[in-house]
């Protein structure tokens, strides 16, 4: 599983405060903790407390702060193209790996973000959202997925660098959506060979629910079973990580040993 650690986000109080105080330490400590817990990449999001006009500069500071402690892929998380460009340029400096999080499936946005991905040899997450909003049905989500893949090929971005996000919504808002997402994952996996990567922003699912950790964990296992191979979530959630590692084990994606949970953390 390609785990993108979600904790460097200004929406979390500790990181929000660190950004406000321009204090590197809590940010760098959080980066190192997530990587030690098995994260493959780190999401970087300045949050909404930062005024819009300052977001590009703050993104640059945040990316550079994290880059001081790791060469791992950084996942620049913003919907704004200009902020994205600044963040991606900082993260990709020296040829280091970077993920664009994210583009929506509206044609002009797709073209602009795919061009950026091509320019920086970046991976890119494509959401199943377009000018009409979040695609609600499996068919609509797949249509945007195909449009995204086509735009990537058009721009010269390797399909293996594209991560399709079918969008999970809070379960206490819409209870039919998770099943539709699972079906979409199965179908995306049949679109091409090798199949496109699938990612979700997992924590959105349990948002506001009393049993959010259990809900997220259960869905993660179901989605892995459906073919999902990447997830944006909190790698410090041990129960979540254990469930994920076990799901992959049961699918014969790793070799069993009595200490397989330890092996994941040591590897």
């Amino acid at each position, binding site marked *: 599983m390609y785990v993108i650690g979600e904790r460097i986000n200004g929406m979390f109080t500790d990181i929000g405060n660190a950004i406000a105080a321009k204090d590197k330490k809590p940010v760098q400590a959080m980066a190192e903790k997530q990587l030690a817990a098995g994260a493959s990449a780190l999401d970087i999001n300045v949050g909404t407390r930062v005024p819009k006009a300052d977001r590009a500069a703050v993104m640059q500071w945040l990316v550079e702060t994290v880059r001081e402690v790791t060469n791992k892929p950084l996942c620049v998380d913003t919907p704004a193209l200009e902020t994205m460009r600044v963040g991606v340029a900082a993260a990709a400096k020296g040829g280091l790996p970077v993920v664009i999080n994210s583009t929506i499936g509206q044609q002009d946005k797709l073209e602009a973000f795919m061009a950026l991905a091509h320019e920086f040899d970046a991976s890119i997450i494509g959401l199943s959202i377009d000018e009409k909003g979040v695609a609600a049905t499996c068919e609509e989500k797949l249509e945007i997925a195909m449009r995204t893949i086509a735009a990537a090929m058009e721009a010269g971005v390797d399909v293996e660098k594209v991560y399709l996000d079918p969008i999970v919504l809070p379960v206490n808002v819409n209870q039919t959506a998770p099943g539709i997402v699972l079906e979409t994952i199965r179908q995306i996996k049949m679109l091409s060979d090798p199949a496109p990567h699938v990612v979700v922003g997992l924590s959105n699912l349990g948002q506001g629910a009393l049993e959010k950790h259990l809900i997220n964990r259960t869905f993660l296992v179901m989605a892995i079973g459906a073919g999902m191979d990447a997830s944006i979530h909190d790698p410090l959630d041990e129960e979540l990580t254990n469930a994920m590692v076990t799901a992959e084990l049961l699918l014969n994606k*790793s*070799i*069993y*040993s*009595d*200490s*397989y949970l*330890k*092996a994941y953390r*040591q*590897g």
Partner: protein
Amino acid sequence: MKMLEEAKGKWAGALNEVVIGATKEQGGTRTSTVTVGGEKTLPFLAYEGPTKNRPVVAMEILDRVPEDWPKPLTDALGDAVKSPAEWAKKCVDQFGADLICLKLQGTHPDFGNASPQAAAATVKSVLAAVGVPLIIWGSDHDEKDNEVLPRCSEAAKGEKCVIGAVKEDNYKTLVSFCLADGHSLIGLSPIDINIAKQVNILVSEMGFPLDRLVMYPTTGALGYGLEYAYSIQERSRIAALGGDKMMSMPVICMIGQEAWRAKEARASAEEAPGLGDENMRGVFWEIATASALLQAGSDIMVMRHPESVAAIKNVITKLTK
């Protein structure tokens, strides 16, 4: 050629590189060292990538006269088998062994019960007789190994030997000594990939570096479990190349020990008149077993007969050209 290029495997991981032996400058007394592992592709697929370090051939010697070895084998080795030091020297000087694998079978309570001190003296005599690196095996008697191998580890301190074997239920004593004395370790698992991984995890949890571990997933000779050994080695190599750090250790195969245990290798012409020349059967059995396991991903081939050794070295040269 286009088809071959398109069939290239893409691997995220690589095998650990293990350096065996230390020269004078490195704190030992070896005149040569051996490096195994480091591969980034399945074996011998030159179009995917080069063989980083070619598999090596160790020759197996015992600390006692091998009374139960078949005559064609002991005839080929000659009188040297009466002294471990002479035997080792002959393997290196005449038969071209890359390293020596000393099996301390004579320390086993049923095979002479030699003392830890006597075993340590044997280790020293072999180290003095040859310049190649040394693999030291106990007698596979857990309690006795825990007395014998620490003394051998101390006696060979700084020589960067490979010492074996540690098992899932007997590893702590030997890990501590090898850690302190700078040796590498062999992790033994009984044809069980899950236990192989478990042994690696347990040993590394004690702070033992992963690049000083070699796996012995047990060897099966042709006709006696070879296909099980092959599948396990192949699967573990694929896992290693896929990025499983707990499976990324080079593999040692006890080819001679297993091949010469086969009826087809041991039986005399009188006992088995239909099986062909008794002087060649065992040699062929050893060669067949070794050449198959090379393809599964093997790094250290421990062999017995000089002619099998020469043949397999030739095979390795051709495969890595």
